[in-house]
């Protein structure tokens, strides 16, 4: 639907470098990256608010690089809501229809429907300054949807909301994507949001697109160490392949040997990515198991967080496991407790150094 073909642009000291990506109709596309990586600039470039210095932007195969924002069929919702403070909620929602010359009566009906749909009809005559964050966000979304955009652009829409409002808003977005069939591009730095909403995603770091593809692929099988680190994989270990038997490799990590599935040849430098969820802890021997990586270790720390706990174990290399608090209690895990740690070879994602 919309494609970036080697797009580069500079804004002061910041620059987007050679970005190529494709967003298809119906995608819920996530752009993730650390703060200052250029996510919002990329979003604004899709909206036509920045003109690239090099490269092309294509919409349905036609070049729109120089097309102004008002002609692109996109709607943008900023993190700060950006509601027009001089207009009531109803006027805000109606704005796009008004400037597009939609007949007053028709626009009024359309706005009434949207206000009801987003549960903000009781706020119609209020000014944005008097609304809560969640209410403002709903108004901003209703205003964007009112113009029936081809692509809805969302700039970290959840970051300023409290957890309860976040959940409600996520449900709203899921409904919007599912029922309206909208193509949505969302900027975020939350892996959880990407898990819940994204169908495809791109990772951008320092103005460069470092990974792009299906959301589950990027989240579970990152292409580089920096992507793995950014998307929050808890255990990232650098090592060297010592042997490979038909794709079943042995990797030396600081003297410890891990078994993992990869085509990397012996001698090749690799990075192992292990989710904390995939690390199993047992007290006692526990060595007879189908898990290919079983090793003895000692608990270094236990950090409880709600119903779960993050347990760090030193087994020559330090690994993090996520357990339920009940498990921690049942196993009586405290710093210093000797444990046996196991990880299935299939749970290890191997990043090869040249990838």
């Amino acid at each position, binding site marked *: 639907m919309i494609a970036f073909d080697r797009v580069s642009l500079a804004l*002061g000291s910041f620059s987007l470098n050679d970005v190529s990506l494709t967003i298809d109709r119906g995608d819920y596309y996530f752009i993730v990256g650390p703060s200052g990586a250029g996510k919002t600039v990329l979003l*604004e470039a899709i*909206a*036509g*608010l920045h003109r690239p210095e090099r490269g092309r932007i294509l919409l349905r195969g036609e070049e729109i690089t120089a097309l*102004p*924002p*008002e002609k*692109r069929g*996109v*709607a*943008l*919702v*900023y993190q*700060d809501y*950006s509601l*027009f*403070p*001089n207009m009531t909620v109803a006027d805000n929602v109606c*704005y*796009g229809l008004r*400037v*597009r010359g939609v007949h007053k009566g028709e626009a009024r009906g359309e706005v009434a429907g949207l206000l009801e749909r987003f549960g903000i009809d009781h706020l119609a005559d209020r*000014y*944005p*300054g008097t609304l809560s964050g969640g209410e403002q966000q709903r108004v901003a979304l209703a*205003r*964007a949807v009112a*113009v029936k*955009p081809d692509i809805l*652009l969302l700039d970290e829409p959840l970051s300023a909301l409290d957890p309860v409002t976040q959940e409600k808003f996520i449900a709203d977005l899921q409904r919007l994507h599912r029922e309206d069939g909208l193509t949505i591009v969302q900027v975020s730095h939350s892996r959880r949001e990407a898990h819940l909403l994204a169908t495809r995603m791109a990772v951008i770091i320092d103005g460069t697109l470092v990974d792009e593809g299906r959301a589950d692929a990027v989240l579970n099988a990152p292409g580089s160490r920096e992507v793995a680190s950014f998307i929050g994989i808890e255990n990232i270990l650098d090592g060297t392949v010592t042997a490979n038997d038909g794709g079943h490799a042995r990797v030396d990590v600081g003297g410890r040997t891990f078994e993992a599935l990869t085509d990397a040849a012996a001698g090749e430098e690799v990075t192992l990515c292990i989710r904390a969820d995939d690390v199993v802890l047992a007290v006692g021997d526990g060595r007879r198991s189908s898990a290919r990586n079983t090793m003895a270790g000692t608990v270094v720390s236990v950090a409880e967080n709600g119903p779960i706990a993050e347990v760090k174990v030193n087994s020559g290399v330090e690994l993090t496991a996520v357990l339920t608090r009940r498990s921690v209690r049942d196993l009586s895990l405290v710093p210093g407790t000797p444990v046996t740690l196991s990880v299935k070879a299939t749970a290890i994602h191997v990043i090869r150094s040249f990838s």
Partner: protein
Amino acid sequence: MKTEALSTDPFPADGETIVTRWKEHLGRYTDWCTVWFCIMGAALVGVTVLAIVNIATTELADPAHLLKVAATSEVIGSILLTFGAGANAVLLLILFGTPLAYVLARSRPSRFKGVVESIVDIPLILPHTVAGLLVYLLFMRRGWLGAPLSDVGLAFEDAYPGTVIAMLFVASPFFVNTMREGFEKVPVHLENVARTLGAGTFTTFRTVTLPLSLRHMYSGAVLAWGRAIGEFAGVIMIAYYPFIISTLIYYSFTTDGIHTSRSIAFTVILVSFGVFYLLRRMTRYLGRYDDRV
């Protein structure tokens, strides 16, 4: 223990005097920084108040003379002319200065922008006579702009347009700089959202940016108008006639003496104070939503 006694007991305890208790109270609870700031600020306001009280005392001692002078057609005509010319200058500033202020507010820093900003500020730093001379040389009958304009019937020397153009020149930085500040306070995100919702650049400006800057436009206009009607040296260079109020006071001072010129001055003070007070009151109710941006 002593603090409790201070805050609850209104009567001095044995051996204490009210003076010592107040000293202690002041020492503990007074923010001396704010007190000194107030004293220094009051000194500044005091000079203005003293000057007004001085002239008022003299003038109100002879109200018959004051009323006689204030009611003359020269004074009334001159006040109307001054205020009218100032208003015309401000209208022209709104028309031409607003786009300039917007461009300055939204353009990225560059050497060119710095040069334009300096040019906008030139009337602020020039002596008023120099500003008047610049206007005269450009708009006199043989001037670069004055010559072609007088050919089409628009004369500036000793004419109303000359007064307006001189006022416009000296007042322009006040309007442009205030307006630019107002535009800078409107978040660019609002404009970006309006654009993606289908508004072109001008529609965005008209429906979002300008309404949110109305308060600054109003303040800039009032400041510029105040500066314009107070101008003397800049105006007399190109338009000694018709008499604006400053010229009339000067003329009266040099021909009739201090008595009459002082009465005219006091009349102008009263009228100006009344008008500016009203204008400031009106600002309170304009663009309230602007505070929420």
